[in-house]
């Protein structure tokens, strides 16, 4: 494992994992999807996790988001231990602390964009009017105010993902987890989402992104490479480049 700078102190971490494990099967059939991971993510940090298919990055994200329970290890979110919570408490966690963005968007086909965004707010017990206001303002932020009454089938892939992002933000989560957010999108749509993510980043949100796309990874603060369930590399991406932009174009001096 190579790093450029030392890890931040655990006390300052928003997300903290120690010895995190997730296993399937038994004996010879035992698969270690996540194998003894230590992780610290500071508040406001954006982290990308890259790796080949099947390396466990999605599983890791599901563990961080409380969508799955770890087989072992410890997991803290905002100072609270979350790996042993029961289903009710986990649900509460997902409602209030975590915003999840999926590769396949996972919008409800029968609900309009606005209703999709309202969904977590209503689940969290907000009044219908409150949820509606919030949903509309978020749709405005992601640039889809004029499509709030459209069904997902009437939206492009990029638009659907933006709706999904709005949905993830509606309950003001502490951390946003994105699983291959640009995986199903073409180039233009990818840039749409990248712009949004950049804005989220600058607003101070803590984001963890699992991605295949180097462009997405390049916009984060830290890039973690994963293979076979463990971290094999961590790279800090702060700082400027050594060359100029023009060099990249191959423009001779």
């Amino acid at each position: 494992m190579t790093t450029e700078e030392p890890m931040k102190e655990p006390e300052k971490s928003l997300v903290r994992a120690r010895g995190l494990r997730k296993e399937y099967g038994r004996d010879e059939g035992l698969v270690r999807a996540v194998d003894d991971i230590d992780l610290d993510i500071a508040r406001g940090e954006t982290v990308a996790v890259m790796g080949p298919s099947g390396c466990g990055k999605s599983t890791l994200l599901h563990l961080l988001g409380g969508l799955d329970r770890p087989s072992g290890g410890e997991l803290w979110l905002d100072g609270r231990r979350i790996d042993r919570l029961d289903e009710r408490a986990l649900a509460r966690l997902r409602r209030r602390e975590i915003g999840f963005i999926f590769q396949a968007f996972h919008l409800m086909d029968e609900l309009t964009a606005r209703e999709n965004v309202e969904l977590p707010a209503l689940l969290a017990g907000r009044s219908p009017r409150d949820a509606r206001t919030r949903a509309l303002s978020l749709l405005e932020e992601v640039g889809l105010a004029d499509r709030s009454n459209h069904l997902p089938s009437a939206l492009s892939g990029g638009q659907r993902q933006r709706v999904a992002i709005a949905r993830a933000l509606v309950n003001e989560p502490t951390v946003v987890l994105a699983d291959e957010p640009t995986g199903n999108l073409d180039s233009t749509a990818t840039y749409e989402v990248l712009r949004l993510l950049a804005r989220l980043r600058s607003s101070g949100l803590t984001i963890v992104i699992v991605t295949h796309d180097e462009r997405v990874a390049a916009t984060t603060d830290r890039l973690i490479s994963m293979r076979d369930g463990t971290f094999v590399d961590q790279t800090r991406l702060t700082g400027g480049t050594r060359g100029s932009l023009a060099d990249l174009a191959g423009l001779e001096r």
Partner: protein
Amino acid sequence: MGTALLVFRLAARDVRHHLGQAALLVVAIAAASAALTMGIALNGVTTQQPYATTRAATHGPDVVAYLTSAYQATKLVDASGVASHSGPYPVASTTIRFDGRLADVLAEGRNTAPAAVDQPLLTTGNWVRSDGVVIERTFADALGVSVGNRVSLNGKSFAVAGIAVTAAEAPYPNLCNGTLIGPNPMASKFSNACPPSFKIPFLSLPGGRELSSSDDVGLIWTTEADAIGLTSKANPLTTYALNLKLTNSDDAQAFAYEHFQSNPLAVSTWEGLASEDEKLVQDGQGVLQPGALLLALLAIASVSVLVGRRLSEYARRVGLLKALGATPSTVATTFLAENLALALFAAVVGLVAGWLASPLITKPGAALVGAAGAPPLAPSTVAEVVGLSGAVALTATLVPAIRASRGSTVDAMNDVARPPRRRGRLVRLSSRLPIPALFGLRLVARRPRRALLSAANIAVTVTGIVTVLAFHAFADNKLSGAVALTAGGLSNPVINRDEQMLTVITVMLVTLAVLNAIFTTWATVIDAKRASALMRALGARVRQVSTGLVVAQVLAALPGAILGIPLGLLLFMAAVKGRGGLPSPLWLIATFVGTLVVMAALTMVPALLGARQSVAEVLSSEAA
């Protein structure tokens, strides 16, 4: 508050999205509810004890005696135990003619003043007068006559002054007025079976025929003078009716035994008449109950299959809701709310339909007070029907709901469930077959659970049809003794009612079965949409693919149909408690073959329709 809106919204949208399935659910439950409502109405008729009510309202007699002379009455009237009496009244046998219909009647001659015992209660019109007769209600219905009409008795014209009910005779057509007294009178109860050929020798009909209980004889009341006027030299007055009220009603059987030991057929007791009336209702229940049971089962099966099919879809929705932070209880609620709401709506529809239809079945008890028209909708009835529908929906959806809400969120969301398993042998076998068979076989092997659901659906359908057939055979058997239409053109109200009930139940069963079949075939095609498109992409012709779908459907239907036949028979036997006749094997074979043919034909339609959609469209759409 927000959660309530959410649940409502999800339910409403989902129903709109899957209108067909929702409609089927509603139809299934509504049919069962309607049957239940009718059953309760019929039950209400017995529990209301209309005979007792009628008896009280008409000062019904404890014992009715048929005497050959008025003198015989004096002895009886003074016998110990007799509290009061009315009569003896002359009873003339004659024929009545109205609107082309002809029937034999007994005309009882009465005073215009009310009698102390057995004063028939008028439901419409007035009591007897000169030239005016009163007709017993059920008989009036069968004859089709109402107050103000004119009827012809023995050639003479009379006005119908009124229509009444009485507790002294069994209502038409069961004018079976005999008590069978066995060796131990105290222990003997009225035997339910009137010997088909018993005769009252002293009561004879015009033309010298002797009255037997299988003749449908109606009852009318006239003035004494008119009654006597109906007799003639050729048709003399031979019978007098005497109504007795005892100091102790319970002594009726003993009294009858004591005085009519040698001539048991000349007397009726009130208990005997009461059980005659009860028989009517039980008769009806004998048709209605098994029918209602079957409908209920069919409804539950349909609902389960409907819900079962949506399970993976539900699972996905459940997974997403959980990922967005819904608690297990919220998830289960959204799952149940929709089905419960539909069930309740269906319950109300069925309730209203059953209530409107119930006069059909309670009518033959119409000779009695308190049994005409639609029975009032008691709160208990409403509660029972609605409660049952809710229970059906609950049972069918509860287990899947709980299972879904406890499963792994991620798996549910990505619908990871079970990828189709490879069955090597089957694949090898199928590669020797022509394309349609290959396709069909592989479809079934790919999704065995779906095929099983399909089979279950068809089993239920066939069970329904077989039961209906068995029913009709049974009913034919039962009713074959009685004639639907008398020689004179009167309809037999009991048979009418039984037939109507049978028809209603048959229609409901068949509708449910047909809808089930349509849904099943349509579902088969939809499930195989992607596979079908693939086949076409690889070069199969549309007809080959459609035939393949038919093969798949028939393969799934086969075990269902095979199972359905014995199931149907078993169910029917259980319902009629083994008293049934069986449909002919020819019909059963026809059902078996017919079901498969119908399923095949029904599959063709959505298959060919689906083929209209371009292959590219299907393969590129997100849903598999």
